Structure formats: structure tokens, C-alpha cells
């Protein structure tokens, strides 16, 4: 065997080991969620449960209003991702198709919001939402999340790859700017729009910081908040139930990722190149 082939195999081994380490927590949660609590304690290392059971899941459903919690999470995630995509498309289009005074500066300012940490805005946003009377409501959670600089950036990057002449050809047909956006620009930037939407949805689904500040009453809880109840120190005996809740919380992002993996990965691959 040549030296190069040996090095190749070595690196594959490293990569696969890393991959296994990264997948282990998922496998761990999955397998223990199907074990009875006593089995889990006696054979925690066992990745395939010897006596699989659904009791943890039925306990979750009997103890938590899973449907309500899921509906809350879904509502916020849908509102946030739909609005983020819409506002991003419009803004990206304005920055691509029109030249107006101050365009460069404005774009820079809007994109710079990527670098603003949430602790800078959370207190005043908390105060604003409270003064609007939206504290402890789902709308209050969604409201500050209706726009996202990442979306503007990703979608604009994609819009910029459309040859100018294609837009000019549409303009010569007497098509309005908004008409061109719907007929030409959006269909041609679908991958970027779709992957932004998925990422926004997943992020909002997983969001913890802002909902934990906003939501107090249990009937408004999202999945992340419900999950948190099982982490506290006294949650110790509930180990397998906690794993079942984890699996349930992972399910949706997981499924979306598997479905749209190609779009998402390629959008991020090309996004990083330009920052």
C-alpha cells in the first residue's frame, strides 16, 4: 500500500471517529428514550435497548400538553420565518435592483446587525413588548423576529448572480418592479429563499433566550421551555422521559434538514466565501 493511500485511510478514520462522537449524543438520547427507567440506569451504555418500551413517550403526552406546546412553537416559528423571508426578499431586491443615494451605507448598517449581540437589545425589547401589553404572549415573542440581516444577505447574494440582461429583458416588456420580482427574481433565487426560510424556521423552533424572557404561563410554553423543566436538578429521576422530550423536540428540525439538506448546505457553503 502506498504512503498516500495510508494517509488517506488515516484521515478517514479521524473523520469517522469525529462523526461518531458527534452522533453519539443523538443515539444516546434516542436509545434511552425507549428504555424503562430501571433499564436505563442499569445499562446506560447500551445503544440498542434490549427491552424497548414506549412508556416514556406516553408519560410525556399524559403529563405535558404536547400538542399545545408544539402549536405554540409552530406558530412562532411560522410567523417569524415567513415574515423574515418576506422582508428579506423585499430588502434584498431593493438593494440589488435600485440604486439610490446612501445605498451602500444603509446596506452596511443593516448587515452589521448580524454582529449585535442579543444582550444589547433584550432589555429595551422586553420593556417595549411589556409596554405594548404583549408580555407572556406568542405575538410578543414573534414581534421582534420579523426581520433578519442574514436573510437579506443570503438572498441578495443570490439575486446578484442573475444576469442583468435578464432583468432588462423583463423591464423591456413593460413589467413593473414588483412584477419582475415575482415573475423572474423570486423563481431564480428559490434555493436561497428556501434555505433561508428553513434555517429561520429551525432557529425559531429552537429559540430559547427570548421566549424564556417573554413567556411565563405554561399554556404559552414552547418546546424549548417545556424541555427545560426536565433539566433542573430534581429532574434526575426523570432521565428517560427527558430523553423522550428531547427526541420530540429534535424531530421537526431533523426532518426539515434531511429533506432540504442539499439546499441548506450549498447555500451556506457559498455564503461564507463572501462573508
Amino acid at each position, binding site marked *: 500500500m502506498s504512503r498516500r493511500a495510508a494517509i488517506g485511510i488515516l484521515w478517514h478514520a479521524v473523520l469517522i471517529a469525529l462523526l461518531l462522537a458527534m452522533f453519539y449524543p443523538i443515539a444516546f438520547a434516542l436509545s434511552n428514550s425507549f428504555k424503562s427507567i430501571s433499564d436505563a440506569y442499569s445499562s446506560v451504555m447500551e445503544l440498542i435497548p434490549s427491552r424497548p418500551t414506549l412508556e416514556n413517550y406516553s408519560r410525556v403526552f399524559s403529563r405535558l400538553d404536547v400538542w399545545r406546546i408544539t402549536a405554540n412553537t409552530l406558530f412562532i416559528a411560522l410567523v417569524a420565518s415567513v415574515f423574515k423571508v418576506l422582508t428579506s426578499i423585499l430588502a434584498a431586491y431593493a438593494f440589488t435592483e435600485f440604486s439610490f443615494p446612501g445605498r451602500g451605507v444603509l446596506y452596511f448598517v443593516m448587515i452589521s446587525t448580524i454582529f449585535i449581540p442579543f444582550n444589547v437589545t433584550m432589555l429595551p425589547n422586553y420593556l417595549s413588548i411589556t409596554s405594548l401589553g404583549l408580555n407572556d404572549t406568542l405575538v410578543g415573542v414573534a414581534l421582534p423576529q420579523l426581520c433578519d440581516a442574514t436573510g437579506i444577505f443570503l438572498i441578495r447574494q443570490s439575486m446578484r448572480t442573475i444576469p442583468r440582461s435578464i432583468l*432588462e429583458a423583463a423591464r423591456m416588456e*413593460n413589467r413593473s418592479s414588483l412584477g419582475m420580482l415575482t415573475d423572474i427574481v423570486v423563481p431564480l433565487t428559490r434555493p436561497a429563499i428556501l434555505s433561508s426560510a428553513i434555517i429561520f424556521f429551525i432557529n425559531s423552533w429552537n429559540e430559547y433566550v427570548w421566549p424564556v424572557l417573554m413567556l411565563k404561563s405554561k399554556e404559552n410554553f414552547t418546546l424549548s421551555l417545556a424541555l427545560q423543566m426536565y433539566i433542573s436538578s430534581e429532574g434526575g429521576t426523570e432521565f428517560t422521559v427527558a430523553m423522550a422530550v428531547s427526541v420530540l423536540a429534535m424531530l421537526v428540525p431533523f426532518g426539515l434538514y434531511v429533506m432540504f439538506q442539499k439546499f441548506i448546505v450549498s447555500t451556506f457553503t457559498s455564503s461564507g466565501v463572501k462573508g
Partner: protein
Amino acid sequence: MKEIVMENVCKSYGGTGVVSDLNISVGSGERLILLGPSGCGKSTILRMIAGLEDITSGSLYLGGRRVNDVESGRRNVSMVFQNYALFPHMNVEDNITYGLRVNRIPRDEIARRKAEVVNMLELSGLEGRKPRELSGGQKQRVALARAVAKRSDFLLLDEPLSNLDAQLREHARKELVKVHEKSGATMVYVTHDQVEAMTVGDRIALLSGGTVQMFDTPSNIYNRPANVFTAKFIGAPSCNIAPARVKGGRISFGGEWFAPGGRWREILSGRSEVRFGARPEHVHLHTDARPNSVRAVVKYSENYGNRTSVFTSVGETEIAVSGEDICFAPGETAYLSFDPDRIHLFDADTEENIGYPDDTRRGEDDEFIYKHNVA
């Protein structure tokens, strides 16, 4: 009423002039070629007509209407782009009918026009394909079909054949002329290719540095170039141009003298210097001295199969000769003679053509003004 008139049109980007003081009028149904090297402003002019670029100053009239401030979509123009600009997510049929649908043309009318252009441009069977499934030639035909289906009064083409290979180009060129004749629109066609310009155009506006060098019929542009730039740009191999001295009706370059004779005596009187021009295909090559011939030494020759180019030097001046059956070896002495009617003399400073011995030869093209020949 399909004329295009440009009056003192200027275009500049932030103080840099791209097109200056353009005055061109194109007749109804005519084919105008905007020809010139890259960066000469020809595409900018086309884009100003299309409404894709603002006009800095001057007036543009389409069909008698001043359209400077009219939006592109309301100018009744259609355009074929260099890269075709087909909508990648629409199939051929949707590409062709998009503009018609947007402009709310009745459905049966759309169907009729689509059938017509599909037939005209031999696109049948391709209607359902996406642009990426088409060959270069097919894309070009779809782009043309889309423009023609619009039935606008003005058809603009921006180097429409430059992305095709040589064989296809010739076919596409002929097809394009046929399609235009059926449509009856006034056509403006941008190219840097002189063969396209000569074969497609009714008239050619030759541009350089944002100004018109000559605006005339292909035949006049070739036979009676208005200036040195025009003479050299048109024709391959390129026209011989040599600085020459003048004395008593005789011309000298490379230390050799000859008398063009006839009315040239009159035209040359009072001048001591000119630029002498003769197209390689109009220079005669002899093995022995003739009256009024100049002596040259053959440097090398290139065989193109159907013709041969022989490069000679007359003293320090290089003169190319091209013809069908000429056969000279490097180092041989040869004698060059010039047909007085087929030489061009230009002012040494302005490089403008100073005239022809026989002005009646222009008869066939007289309806056009020989604008730029300022002697």
C-alpha cells in the same frame, strides 16, 4: 412612422463622455448597423434607444415621438441580448409569450403569434424545453422569436450572433435578415464584426471613441472610406495606409514616386503631404516594371487557400497585396501599380478623405448624405 432620430445625443458617466454629439436618423424599416471596436459606445447607443440607459443630453425620437423620458417598456421596442437573456426558469413557449402575457394581449392572439414565430424560426418541438436544454443556435432563435413575437416597431439586437460558432453564424445571419424583412420593423444591430455589418446592414454607422466616423451604405463605407479609421477598420487584410509626400501631382512613399493622374492632380494641388491608402486587393503586382509602378521587395506571403496575401516593402513602407493567383518568393523584386480610381488619399493631419477623381460613381447611393467627407 418607424423612424429613429437621434439629435445631438450625448452620454456620459460621471463626467466621462461615452457618446458625444450623435446625429443619426434611421428610416422606417431600415437596417442600421452600429459597428466599431469594443468600447466605442455602440452598445450604449443601443441601450439608450432601448431605454436601458439614460440620455445625458440631446433628443431621441422613435416614430416621431421624443422618448427620452419614456420608460423602456413603453417605447415599443424589442431587443435581442448578446447572451440572449432567456428566462432560465421558463420553457421556450413561456419565454416567447411572457411579454405578451404581461401586456395582456388576448389569448388567441398570443397563440397566433407564437405559432407564427415558432414556424418562422423552426422552433417547433422545442416549445416545452428549458433554455439550459437548448443549443446555442436554438437559444439565439428563441431570443429572436421572443423579440419578433412582440411585433414592436423597433427591433434592437446587441451582438446577437457573437456567441455562435462561425458556421452557425452565417446561417443565422441570413435567417435574421429574412425574419426582419417579414417583420418590417426598423432594426438597429450592434456588432464588432465587419462581415455581419456589410452583409446585414442597409447602412452602417461606424463608431470610434463615442463619435461617428462614417455613416453610410456598406458599399460606400468599403469603397469610399471617409477617413483613415474607416479605411483601416473595414476590409481584411486591412487597407494599406502610408504617409506620402506630394509634388507636382505626384505621390511618393518609401522613396518611390508615381503619378495617380486624372483629376487627382487638381485635388492634390497645394498639398505637400497626404496619407496614401490602397486596399491590398486593389494593388496589382508585376514581375517587371510598368509605367507608373513602384519597386518593392517581397518579405513574406500567406496562403489562405482561396487567395494569397503578399507582404512587400517599398523602401521603409510596408504594402500588402492580396489576390488569387499571385506567387512570389521572399526576397524577390516586384513592381506595384495602383488603379487611380481605387486609391484613397487622406489629409495628413485630419486623416479625412480629400476626395475622389470621379464623383459620379456614388450614383447608386445618392439618396444618403455623404455626411462625413469633409475635404
